[in-house]
């Protein structure tokens, strides 16, 4: 099979378009690169949606944890503890088992047993907990003077939060949040390895890489291809987040800007 043929058959294979049958023998490098790349669509889907929705939830959770009201603080603390204190692997397993047994109760839960929705929810809650903790830390370290100045200008409640507290919180949290985004993206590989079935062999990049490694009994081709894809996407994430970071810091003199540093100690 030529490269062009492989591309037209497998480029959208992970979404169910193109050739149904996966290659079974005489695997070419093209097939491996294209099929694994096709699987990356799922990783990007999980990563982008979980990160965007998780961001909103994380802000709410961080504000809840920093709140002085007990009924707001306690649930936020527990939420963060449960999702940060247990392995994502087990969370996904548990969620899948939970959704399958709920399916018996009511057909409403049918879509939740698919990876596209069920696993997305777990990833979303998980990243919300991790980012919530990061944002909470940032909320605690907002310079006192900023808030006093806001008070002096007569800003209170929502306007104060939206115009003073929130931008500063984001600015302080951004380097750590960049790492969180990278690791969430890496964590998306767990989905099809922990319960959620790859319907009609429509899996993510790791699913296909593992398929090739199992079939050829040769890990030295498929996994490095996958690693290459992930390094590429990690660089893209670092680039995009770097732009946002530059915007958040644009009012500061160059020496006081916070730089995004890579700190890989935030894995699940």
């Amino acid at each position: 099979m030529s490269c062009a043929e492989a591309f037209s058959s497998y480029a959208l294979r992970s979404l169910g378009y193109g050739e149904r049958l996966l290659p079974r023998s005489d695997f070419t490098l093209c097939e491996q690169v294209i099929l694994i790349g096709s699987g990356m669509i799922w990783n990007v889907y999980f990563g982008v949606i979980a990160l965007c929705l998780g961001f909103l939830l994380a802000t709410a959770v961080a504000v809840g944890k920093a709140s002085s009201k007990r009924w707001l603080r306690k649930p936020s603390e527990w939420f963060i503890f449960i999702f940060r204190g247990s392995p994502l692997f087990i969370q996904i397993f548990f969620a899948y088992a939970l959704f399958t047994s709920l399916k018996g109760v009511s057909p409403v839960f049918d879509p939740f047993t698919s990876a596209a929705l069920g696993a997305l929810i777990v990833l979303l809650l998980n990243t919300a907990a991790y980012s919530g903790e990061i944002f909470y830390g940032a909320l605690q370290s907002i310079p006192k003077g900023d808030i006093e100045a806001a008070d002096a200008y007569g800003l209170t409640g929502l306007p104060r939060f939206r115009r003073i507290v929130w931008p500063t919180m984001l600015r302080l949290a951004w380097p750590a949040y960049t790492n969180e985004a990278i690791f969430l993206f890496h964590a998306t590989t767990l989905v099809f390895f922990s319960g959620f079935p790859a319907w009609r062999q429509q899996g993510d990049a790791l699913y296909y890489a593992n398929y090739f490694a199992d079939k050829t009994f040769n890990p030295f081709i498929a996994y490095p291809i996958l690693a290459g894809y992930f390094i590429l996407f990690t660089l893209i994430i670092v680039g995009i987040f770097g732009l946002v970071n530059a915007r958040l810091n644009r009012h500061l003199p160059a020496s006081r800007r916070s730089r995004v540093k890579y700190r890989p100690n935030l894995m699940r």
Partner: protein
Amino acid sequence: MFSFCTDPSLLATPAWFACYLTTGKLMLFYASFGTVLLLLAITAPIALGFGFGAAAAARSRILPLSWFGKIYIAMVRGVPDIVFFLFFVIALDQGIEYLRHKIKCPDWDEPIRQGSDFIVCAAAKMPLSTAPQAWHEVYGFALAVLTFAIVFGAFAGNVLFGAMRAVPQAQLETAEAYGMTHRQTFWRILVPQMWIYALPGLSNLWMVLVKATPLLFLLGVEDIVYWAKELGGAKTARFTDYPHGDWRVWYFLGLLIFYLAFTRVSEIVLDRITARLTHGQATAAGEAQRKAAA
């Protein structure tokens, strides 16, 4: 386990649970928690050793050694750890068998890779196909430990490399001014002081290691996840020792609680260690401790 379990009328009563929870298979499930703890106990020091070696190599003046250390440390950036877990298990296994093949069967003339097959002579199989089942399990576990140690060694190397750079430069310059050699400076000045800077990173790493243990399941070791899936599933419901439906939810809930409790205990212990090591150190936390006592 209990003598009253032989009475079939018990099935409908709550007492049945006492019997259910003490059957042989469930005992294997409990024992697999031991497997996880054993993995942690063995892996943590090995990974720390790897990390230390890598950090020391990265600081080395010999250029190839320094490159090796830096590449190893940088390896875990950018690529999901689960990929390494899947990769190293096969790669190590094939590497070991390849080496044994070269040593034990020198007059073997067929290629090792034939299409999609990896073929070595029978004497080079690891473990030998005649070996008892227990050795196969030990070998699998050892591979898993090595894989964990390699991956987490890279993480630890990252932390320790950072910690070595955090030790005030003036200390090292003073040591050199006193005429210490490079080696003496490293062992007498740098290493004793770096731990307090490494501790936050290392405690974080411990938490990460604890949370990475379910990946054992992917490496083919019969760990808690394996048993939870096996025992909770309803697939044997018809012929079976356990007449129950799909109980995986409850098993995984149990695992979730196990991990939460384990994390919490680790947190408390690590906080105490930090407090103790901070004592008397010239850091902000040490200063705060001194003020609180005064």
